[in-house]
């Protein structure tokens, strides 16, 4: 489904502090499977996720989605693809303070111009499924860590994406909550969604929910 060929990414290109975070990655990610990226800190996992998730463009190499080359697309089009295809769950959850859980969940759909009523129904259904219906009008900063993460998951699903991308999703959770998260993840796998995540956490990487683990080091993939 997603194919990367010899993808490289440089930061501060052409300056004295130029840094190649990825130095040639070739990887195929299959649809409807849960793939985990594992590697030491600084190995380029997050950078790779941003390229897969159309948050950034590679400096060189090709990224293709369903066979379509998307590596040269301008931001405007990447955003459109991203909005339709990918949902994101971030390590810090990145919810917007001061807004209710419900509003946070609806945010990614605002630029699509979908009718407000429809959005609200969908958001309610998602919160309900994640057992947050009773907290929908609470401001997000009043929620517990686990609840916040579930709001973030609901937000990632509002546009009904094929692929869910999660960067270190359990780093801010205790064991019980991490297990709960893995259970939710498993249900997505069963639903037929593609999930890509990064983690240091053995609990995640070795869990039964994960179908494939990719090891990384120094911006390269390490073959097992």
């Amino acid at each position, binding site marked *: 489904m997603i194919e990367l060929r010899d993808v490289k990414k*440089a930061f*501060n*290109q*052409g300056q004295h502090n130029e840094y190649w975070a990825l130095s040639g990655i070739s990887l195929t990610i299959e649809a409807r499977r849960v793939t985990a990226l594992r590697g030491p800190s600084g190995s380029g996992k997050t950078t790779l996720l941003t390229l897969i998730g159309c948050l950034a*463009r*590679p*400096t*060189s190499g090709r990224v293709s989605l369903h066979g379509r080359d998307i*590596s*040269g*697309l*301008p*931001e*405007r*089009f990447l955003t459109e693809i991203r909005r339709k295809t990918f949902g994101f769950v971030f390590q810090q959850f990145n919810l917007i303070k001061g807004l209710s859980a419900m509003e946070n969940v609806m945010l990614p759909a605002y630029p699509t111009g979908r009718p407000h009523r429809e959005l609200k129904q969908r958001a309610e259904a998602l919160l309900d499924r994640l057992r947050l219906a009773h907290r929908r009008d609470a401001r997000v900063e009043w929620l517990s860590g686990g609840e916040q993460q579930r709001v973030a998951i609901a937000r990632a699903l509002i546009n009904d994406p094929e692929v869910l991308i999660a960067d270190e999703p359990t780093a801010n959770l205790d064991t019980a909550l991490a297990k709960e998260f893995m259970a939710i993840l498993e249900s997505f796998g069963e639903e037929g969604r593609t999930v890509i995540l990064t983690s240091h956490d053995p609990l995640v990487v070795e869990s039964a929910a994960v179908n494939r683990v990719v090891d990384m080091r120094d911006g390269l993939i390490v073959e097992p």
Partner: protein
Amino acid sequence: MIFQPAIIALLLASVISVAMLLAAAPFAIQIIRHWDIASGSERQLQLERRTYLFSTLAMFVMATQLMALMLFVFNADKMSVMFVGAMCAVGTLNVNAWGFPALIAQMAVFFLAASWLAVNHVDTRAPDYPLVRIKYAALLGLLPAVAAVLWLQLEYFMNLRADVITSCCGSLFSEDTKGLTGDMAALSPVPAMVAFYAAIALAFATAAFHAQTKRGGAAGYAVAATSVAAFVAALTGIIAFVSLYIYEHPHHHCPFCILKPEYDWQGYWLYVPLFAATACGAGAGAVQPFRNVESLRNVIPQVSARLAALAAAGFLIFAVIATVFVARSNLMLIET
């Protein structure tokens, strides 16, 4: 020079527009020189980010010009009390040789900016931004046009002398005047009406047809051509007969007095849809040269059809409003 708030406001608007485009010019040149959509280099990413600024700036300049255009006419009308012989905007604009050129230049800049935005719009719909270089070269071309407006306005306002005796709409738009404006006024009502409705109907039909079929090329150019023709015919019609019905006076042909509060600002109801429709029609033509660009093959027919639909709607609204004004009037020009 007459020191007056509206004049200062107009000059301020022009100066800011020129300054913005001038500040943007070096970056536009950078884009023209270094643009490379295939590259993922940081410079290219920088340039792409800049394009958002330029679209926003161009939009701002266009909006400014549109509002300045209205303010310019509005102000000319108000200032007419200051000049001997002036009864409305025409008299004020006639005080020196720069008035009408300034007005026309401002209208031209508005239509140019609208066309640029139409081209910009189709370009941003294609993932490879095929028109970037053309677009930014054109943006650089807009700069002298906006600067010309500023210059003409400066000349006009600096040379406004209150002791000049000017001639007003009564003589400019009179049946006896030689020249274009006199000829427009001298048209007898029936042929003028026929030409007016025929041109607008043609523009409407062409635009509606194009909007329906989405067939490109010739039809798109035809929309632009008929829109411009309808614009001219509409102005002629306003001078020849619509204004008479609004004033309920058989010899007052002025296209500016209808903007006056005494006539309930009826002119704005006519001009706003007319200008909008013409801008959309011109836009539909402006994008046609690029219809064979590979990545725009699907985009241009859609966009130009959309623009044509808007133009058709605008002309329809204009015609309906003009008809209502004529029908409501107590003046009888045609024996029945």
